[in-house]
């Protein structure tokens, strides 16, 4: 068992290295210079440009730049091209801002999708099923920012829910309780909007998994044994239907990071997505690459945990 784990971890490390290399190559091969050292930037004098280029190793061959990046990343010395601030603390701060949004959105998605999907499967063809199906398709098909703006328009005028930023301006001086409530209030709309498409997709998937399991022979056996309907559904069927979802945990993270770019832009949320967006605009390679690297690393960790979890819950896999 340990050899399996070790091999798994090693494989993932190799993948991580390959990803970092690919990302590095792609980013550096693209045309366009970091704004600081762009020859057309009027604010920079020629000698400053030369100095900065030397400091950031921008004229060195590609593989050397990669090594420099890796070295600086792991020693914590990596500096942003945009403002020469250390990259890791910057990312960390923004990550802390994004975290409540991620956590809230994930909680909403997973806690709403399962009951909806399961209920729709058990009552297949009913009004509930047809309604939730239609709603799901609606949320999948509507552009995220379109829906967000619609909701913002409605919510700001009628319900007075805040939709900009993480906290109300000037709240820093208020008491802790009020500050925290304000933050929570600010979390509501962005997390629901981030979660909308996820709920739609996941609940459909839950429904189809449940339906497939309900059609299996062993469910018929369970009914033939005279078990009550709830036992058949929630013990026999659900246990089997839930298995694939364990593996989906790992892929949550890239989706969240990708989606956060849009939603953080709409709601002016100073998080990771926005950091990435600003870095792209400024061609801030270290930040872009590090974000990609961290996202990939987190995904690999996530899928690793999923693999382990899957082996735990599915007895058929355990013995291998």
């Amino acid at each position: 068992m340990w050899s399996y784990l070790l091999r798994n971890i090693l494989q993932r490390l190799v993948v991580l290295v390959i990803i970092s290399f690919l990302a590095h190559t792609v980013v550096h091969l693209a045309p366009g210079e970091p704004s600081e050292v762009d020859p057309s930037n009027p604010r920079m004098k020629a000698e400053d440009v030369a100095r900065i280029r030397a400091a950031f190793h921008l004229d060195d061959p590609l593989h050397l730049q990669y090594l420099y990046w890796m070295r600086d990343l792991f020693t914590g010395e990596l500096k942003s091209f945009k403002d020469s601030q250390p990259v890791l603390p910057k990312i960390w701060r923004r990550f802390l801002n994004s975290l409540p949004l991620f956590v809230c959105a994930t909680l909403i998605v997973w806690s709403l999708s399962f009951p909806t999907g399961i209920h729709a499967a058990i009552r297949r063809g009913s009004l509930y099923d047809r309604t939730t199906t239609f709603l799901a398709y609606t949320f999948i098909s509507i552009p995220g920012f379109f829906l967000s703006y619609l909701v913002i328009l409605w919510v700001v005028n009628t319900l007075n829910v805040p939709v900009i930023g993480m906290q109300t301006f000037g709240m820093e001086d208020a008491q802790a309780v009020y500050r925290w409530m304000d933050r929570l209030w600010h979390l509501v709309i962005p997390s629901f909007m981030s979660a909308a498409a996820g709920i739609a997709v996941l609940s459909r998937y839950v429904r189809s998994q449940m339906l497939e399991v309900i059609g299996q022979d062993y469910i018929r056996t369970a009914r033939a044994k005279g078990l009550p309907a709830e036992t058949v559904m929630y013990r026999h069927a659900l246990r089997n239907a839930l298995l694939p979802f364990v593996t989906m945990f790992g892929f949550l993270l890239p989706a969240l990071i990708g989606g956060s770019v849009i939603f953080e832009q709409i709601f002016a949320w100073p998080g990771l997505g926005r950091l990435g967006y600003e870095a792209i605009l400024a061609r801030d390679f270290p930040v872009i690459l590090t974000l990609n690297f961290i996202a990939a690393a987190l995904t690999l960790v996530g899928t690793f945990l999923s693999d382990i979890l899957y082996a735990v819950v599915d007895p058929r896999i355990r013995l291998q």
Partner: protein
Amino acid sequence: MPTLSGPLLTISDLRVSFFTDRGEAPAVRGVSLTIPAGQTVALVGESGCGKSTVALAITRLLSDPGRILGGQVVFKGRDLISLPEPALRAIRGKEIGMIFQEPMTSLNPVFTIGEQIAEVLYVHAGLSKRAARLEVLRLLEKVGIVPAARRIDQYPHELSGGMKQRVMIAMALACQPDLLIADEPTTALDVTVQAQILELLYALQQELHMAILLITHNLGVVAQFAQAVHVMYAGKIVEQADVHSLFQHPLHPYTRALLKALPRPGHRAERLAAIAGTVPTPFQYPPGCAFASRCPDVRGHCPTAEPPLTATDPSHKVACWLHERSVPP
């Protein structure tokens, strides 16, 4: 076991159809049969004739496009078709046990076999976990799964097909039901294992004085174990008799064709006598006898007039114009 005054199970004019998007497919078109207590009754027919549907309909285990349209299934004095769900559930697994054709997929892969057998005991016998576990060990040994203590905590995928079927039998018999419905219990198993499973069923039947409804397409099995046989074709019973009469004096052309089609050991280099033609599609059954298109003795009125099931003998009934006294107009 108290003796009943009448048969254990009586099916009267059972009708089941499948409502698909291609229309209605009548799978069971007025089937009647009785199962006396302690006896083995065989329901024979080729794939698609509706025999499995009859088995599922008895305890209302049919799934969606299938619906019971009419008829009665009287079990120990009560009609199962109209029984409310909770009462039916009390009978399923406790008084009527069922085993299915595909042992590979009939067991839940995420629970141990011990848990799955014990479940029946929790629900119907109210046993505690400890008492149930002991009983499960006893049952496993009885169905021939040894060493029981090692197997009880194993998962279905760790067992062979034959063992899985034994587990199914243990599950079905845990509460000592009066009737066991066995839907093609050996079809999916190897030949050597088939014999073992059948021997096991026979032994358990003797011990528990249990009736068995044996659904099969294997006439050899029928000859060995059944006391009464019902032959089904295209949703209807075309002949029913006690096993000796059926094999010695088959009356219906279909039955005779089935018996003729059995390969006989010792006769080499003979062409197998297949039955020409195919079963009519359920979406378009002819108004008359469904076997007419393949019958070597077909008469002019056969395709249009439905022959009724009539007795030529106290224990032998057949639905065929060849054996009717009155000819339809």
